[in-house]
């Protein structure tokens, strides 16, 4: 892919080490404005680490990364971030709309003025924006219910709304479809694509299954320990490219309905609970 100065995210021969262990190295990839990009790869390859590098939560050990033309960590307001799926406790007595609200001013010190919406124009504008994003993700019907009591797909929509409140230029989503049922996966994927196309938000999405998002993708980045393969899904998700990337025979099969099946991809041992652990723990389970 040709790198230009307007790239939203640009990794150049980047590497990350955690506790002396190289997670990945020699990763180069660039994301252009308005693109819908998926970061793929087997479990434990460091996809979330890549996201953390974009957010500036982890420093590179080699190479460089720029985000919206600046070093990472300096574009906080312009990035909407959705971490790996959080399950809200079913007893949490906080409404969905309150969680979305936190997206607009949650990190500010102090307390919001009670009933300030009626007094301050800025608060009114913020409240209108919150209603707008809730409408956009189609969550109006259940935004006033306690968030622990709506379904996983509904929670995910509210969290996407939370990430969108401040008009981000870049939306970074870490496994947003993980542990959703199939219909919810399809509808949330379609929603993310709509946000990308109609609201010109660049989307960078981590996934371990490409199929739900395959129809919408501009570009995929397959991540491996020794680098990344980037390009259109047709170029990258092929037996040749992935075999070369992982240096082990990988076969890509296409089912009759167009779904892709990757066979022989080096998988980390199936320790699904550990996938949601912190980065230090992730570093310990590299294959």
């Amino acid at each position, binding site marked *: 892919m040709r790198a230009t100065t307007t790239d939203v995210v640009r990794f150049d021969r980047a590497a990350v080490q955690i506790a002396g262990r190289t997670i990945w190295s020699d990763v180069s990839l660039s994301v252009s404005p308005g693109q819908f990009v998926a970061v793929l790869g087997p479990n434990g390859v460091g996809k979330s680490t890549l996201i953390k590098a974009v957010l500036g939560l982890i420093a590179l050990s080699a190479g460089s990364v720029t985000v919206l033309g600046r070093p990472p960590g300096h574009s906080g307001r312009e990035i909407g971030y959705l971490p790996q799926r959080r399950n809200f406790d079913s007893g949490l007595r906080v409404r969905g709309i309150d969680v979305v609200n936190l997206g607009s001013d949650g*990190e500010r*010190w102090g307390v919001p003025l009670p009933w300030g919406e009626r007094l301050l124009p800025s608060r009114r504008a913020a409240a209108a924006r919150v209603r707008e994003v809730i409408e956009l993700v189609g969550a109006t019907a259940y935004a*006033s219910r306690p968030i622990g009591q709506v379904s996983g797909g509904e929670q995910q929509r509210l969290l996407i709304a939370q990430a969108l409140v401040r008009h981000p230029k870049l939306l970074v989503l870490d496994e947003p479809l993980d542990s959703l049922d199939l219909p919810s996966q399809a509808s949330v994927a379609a929603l993310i694509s709509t946000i990308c196309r109609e609201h010109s938000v660049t989307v960078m999405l981590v996934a371990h299954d490409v199929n739900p998002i395959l129809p919408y993708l501009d570009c995929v980045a397959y991540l491996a320990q020794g680098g990344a393969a980037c390009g259109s899904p047709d170029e990258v998700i092929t037996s040749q490219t992935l075999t070369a990337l992982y240096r082990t025979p990988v076969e890509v099969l296409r089912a009759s309905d167009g779904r892709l099946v990757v066979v022989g991809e080096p998988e980390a041992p199936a320790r699904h609970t550990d996938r949601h652990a912190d980065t230090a723990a992730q570093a310990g389970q590299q294959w």
Partner: protein
Amino acid sequence: MVTVATNPGLSWNVISDVRQLLLFPFMVNAFRAGTIVAITAGALGWFMVLRRQAFAGHTLAVVSFPGAAGALLLGVSATLGYFGGAIAAAVVIAAVPRSLGGRARSSESAIIGTVQAFALACGALFTSLYGGFLSGLLTSLLFGSFLGIAPSQVLTLLAMSVVALTALAVIARPLFFATVDPDVAAARGVPVRLVGTAFLILLGCAAAEVSQITGALLVFALLVMPAATAQQLTARPMISFVLTIGLGVLIVWLGLAVAYFSIYPVGFYITSFGFACYVLAAGWRAAAGRVRRTSRGTAAVSAA
């Protein structure tokens, strides 16, 4: 404690009963202290219930018992001991790594339990060294001395409350963010760990304050019950917060008033009123949920 000169009798005339209640300075002080304590405990308790840190809160309250007993043993004021013990324990609990993954939760509660057991043992040692088992000190440390509050104590409580509530107001919104959604809060630059530590210290202050009034064992009446009740009733944060404080003040006032006309301890009444509120709220919510489910079911049936 002041002996009641006239026999307290309930006349069932609200105005004369209230006038009778406020006749004695010790009752006026009890009302003042109770109100201050109810507001502070309600505000911090609301966050504690939301953060699922009731066990930590309980430990902070229990630790004020050895704190106070130790202070008496050393000959310094019990108030100092209450606050010292609770704040020290808050710092210890905050030092326990609380990872976002949730796996540290169980080890956290184990550590808190260990701290609590040791603190209680120290408290028992201190009171026995002081000879307190015989003098009724233990009862007063564990179950409070609502009716023996001096005006100077009320002032101390007021000052501590103002400080604690101001600090809480400063951290309130990021604390709420870090409670509901720690990962995103951290990514947005909220110092999640720092805010959590600050909260525990404030909670320690509140627990110490309440302990002085209700005793170490009944702190929960004011720290948990109003917040748990309010959160049953509504999921709107601002409203449930205000409701928490209102309920706290109400049960303290009711408890004090009823205890004045009765021979049983204040702590029992306050706790019982709090418990009654909670049971009513939980029952109401369960009933409302059932009605909503039934009506939705009928709607679905009629739609089909």
